[in-house]
């Protein structure tokens, strides 16, 4: 019985890893006041970039592959930063476009990688008889680091202030635009890292649409965890567990598999509704989703 629980926990942690990484990224840019719905797209290009570098030759550096994934995610998010911060375009529309561009481009450019073998995947670590990916460990550490950085450093205070009251920050000499652009790039890099986990560790292969909606769940997770990095660990575990349940139940039941595939998304709706009822949406950074124009009230 015990081993089943631990087994479930380990599996939940594995599926939860990309959710956690992407969610931390989204927390980063949303605490600065920028919503980025393009997580799914940034994750997809991250997964492809990592796979393309790692599958080039047997002695390709996995570090380089991870770096490529983060760069790819950040590069795609730069579009969003330019559109929403520089041009002050609507953040939601721009984010949706980013998701479509990212998944589309990854599918198109990734055709030749489909079915290719990965020479060496990121080796799992064994801890007390259970295997755990280094990505998972990194994600947990990053959650702690982000929580600390946001609350206890000058940079974190600056970023939070920009997300709450950009006018106040501006008057004190904070560069609101630069802060927001950097936050969006950071969010993109973490989404790319989540993608790298999928293609280098979790699946060890490339397939079109391999992100499978995880990016969208990460976006909802941010609200569920109230924009707090440490709570994101619990949130990611919870949704990871739901995924695990879906795999387990799918095998031995005669319910159509589509129902199980849809389950996480239905749960997203339920969870968001609950967050709304509990008034959790009030935890959102005050300036979230709004372009900053100097001198406007």
């Amino acid at each position, binding site marked *: 019985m015990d081993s089943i629980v631990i087994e479930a926990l380990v599996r939940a942690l594995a599926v939860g890893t990309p959710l956690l990484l992407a969610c931390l990224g989204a927390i*980063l840019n949303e605490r600065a006041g920028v919503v980025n719905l393009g997580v799914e797209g940034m994750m997809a290009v991250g997964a492809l970039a990592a796979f393309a570098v790692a599958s080039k030759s047997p002695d390709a550096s996995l570090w380089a592959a991870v770096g490529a994934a983060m760069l790819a995610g950040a590069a795609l998010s730069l579009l969003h930063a330019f559109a929403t911060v520089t041009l002050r375009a609507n953040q939601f529309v721009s984010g949706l476009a980013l998701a479509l561009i990212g998944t589309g481009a990854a599918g198109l450019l990734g055709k030749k990688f489909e079915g290719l073998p990965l020479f060496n995947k990121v080796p799992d670590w064994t801890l007390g008889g259970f295997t755990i990916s280094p990505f998972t460990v990194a994600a947990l550490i990053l959650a702690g680091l982000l929580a600390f*950085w946001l609350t*206890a*450093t*000058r*940079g974190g*205070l*600056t*970023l*939070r*202030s920009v997300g*709450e*009251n950009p*006018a*106040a*920050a501006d*008057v*004190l*000499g*904070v*560069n609101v635009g*630069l*802060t927001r652009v*950097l*936050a969006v790039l*950071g969010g993109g890099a973490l989404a790319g890292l989540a993608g790298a986990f999928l293609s280098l560790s979790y699946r060890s292969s490339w397939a079109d649409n391999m992100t499978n909606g995880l990016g969208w769940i990460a976006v909802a997770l941010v609200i569920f965890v109230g924009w707090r990095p440490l709570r994101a660990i619990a949130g990611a575990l919870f949704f990871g567990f739901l995924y695990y349940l879906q795999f387990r139940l799918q095998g031995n039941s005669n319910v159509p598999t589509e129902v199980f595939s849809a389950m996480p998304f239905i749960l997203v709706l339920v969870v968001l509704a609950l967050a709304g009822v509990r*008034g959790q949406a009030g935890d959102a950074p*005050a300036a979230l989703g709004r372009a900053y124009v100097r001198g406007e009230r």
Partner: protein
Amino acid sequence: MKGLAALRPAPVKGWTVNQTQSSAGPPALRLSGITKRFPGVVANDAVDLTVHAGEVLALLGENGAGKSTLISILYGLYQPDEGAVELAGQPVRIGSPAQARRLGIGLVPQHPLLVSRHTVAENLALGRVGGLFPARRVAGQVRELSARYGLEVNPEARVSDLSPGEKQRVEIVRALLGGARVLILDEPTSVLTPQEAEGLFRVMRELKADGRSLIFISHKLDEVLAVADRVTVLRRGKVVGGVPTRGATRESLAELMVGRSVDFTRKRAGGPGAEAGALLSVRDLSAQGARGLPALRGVSFELRRGEVLGVAGIAGNGQSELVEVLAGLHAATGSVTLDSQALTGDAAARFRSGVAHIPEDRIHSGTVPSMTVAENLALRDFERPPLARGLARDLTATDERARREVEAYGVATPGIHTPTRLLSGGNIQKLILARELAGQPKLILAVHPTYGLDIGATDQVHRVLLDRTGDGAGVLLVSEDLDELLSLSDRVAVMVGGSLLGPFPVAEVTRESLGLLMGGAHPHSIPGADQGPTQNGVMA
């Protein structure tokens, strides 16, 4: 992201105070010949101004006199077209607020610019303190400053929990942390009770004794006389006078400011007595505020026919909710009757039963800024005759009526098809009055009706409201300006924490007693106010 903080060198300036400058030296600040033009107006016209160390200079002027422009130039938000600024004898160019702060010029804005979810210390550390735990590192300095100048500020408190006066103290501390030698206070008392204002004046005197220079912007003459050493008066962009406060009177300053003599006597003669009978009767009204907290706790009172009932209170004590409930914009329990009929229904239904509403936010609740003057005037009844025929609007009738109203109320507008966002605050307010009073209302709910208006427009709004009481209409006047309340009201009530104290006959209250009640003192502990509640038998 870590590099973000390192990009900007912290402008750390010692906030410890140097020796007080001798008055024989150059003035702490000298403006000479400052001119600033905007399309169509000269906002500042060759303005000269000096402030010495250890001096409080009051800058006095009506709205539009050029005070704001002058402050903006001093704080680096605008560049003057002509003229020079000297700080302690050195010519300076102030290119940005950051540069102004580096030069030792601090601004305490009228509306504090703070991150409400953060703590006081976090707000004060922003953009200033580097490295780890910036808030903790600034907290010690804050306590030291608090103790030294009697500025009560708790660095750990969350800004959203602070009163307007506390937020203002945070802004003062911020300016002092930045090493301000010249401190500009922009209408600092507009959000304070008289007692809080007195506290602010004590702090100002401490700062002055410390050799700092203060520029105090206000149009409240009593305060100027109480705290300033000298007064510089602006009218239409020009300096029209500079006098020491010693020897000046309210009347002499007002005449300088307005350019004609001003009558300070009470505008209202006697109001109706109890025999006039109740027009509006409110019983046990309770309502929840925006965050689910109780905003009204069992409010009961009566408003007589032809009476002006003033409601005093610090913003956020339930006045807004009370008016919104009466106007049909906010749900509540309890009973409200107007002319012995239960007052129910939505805002439109209540308007038809005779409730006019002059809302707090005149631009966004009172008008649709992108729509024209004529359309805004027709908002209440555009779908009924005479402004409509069947399903179609009668645009000719709409325009005709708009022309009449614009004429009657003296709304200065380029035309009736001008969007109201292009109108000044005073003209928008006249337009709202024209619309709301068109239907001969029985009850007029007026919230801050003259906030931000100049003396001329204020006078007109007051006259229009008082005129209506002659026809038997009742006015519920919510204002933060105690002078306005005392000048217009027949009785005055105070709202504090969602409860209504009073109403008290206006002859039995003073600015001081109202101020104490607004701050939460028990009515029986206030001399002059202790008979009010029982006499009127209104307080439960």
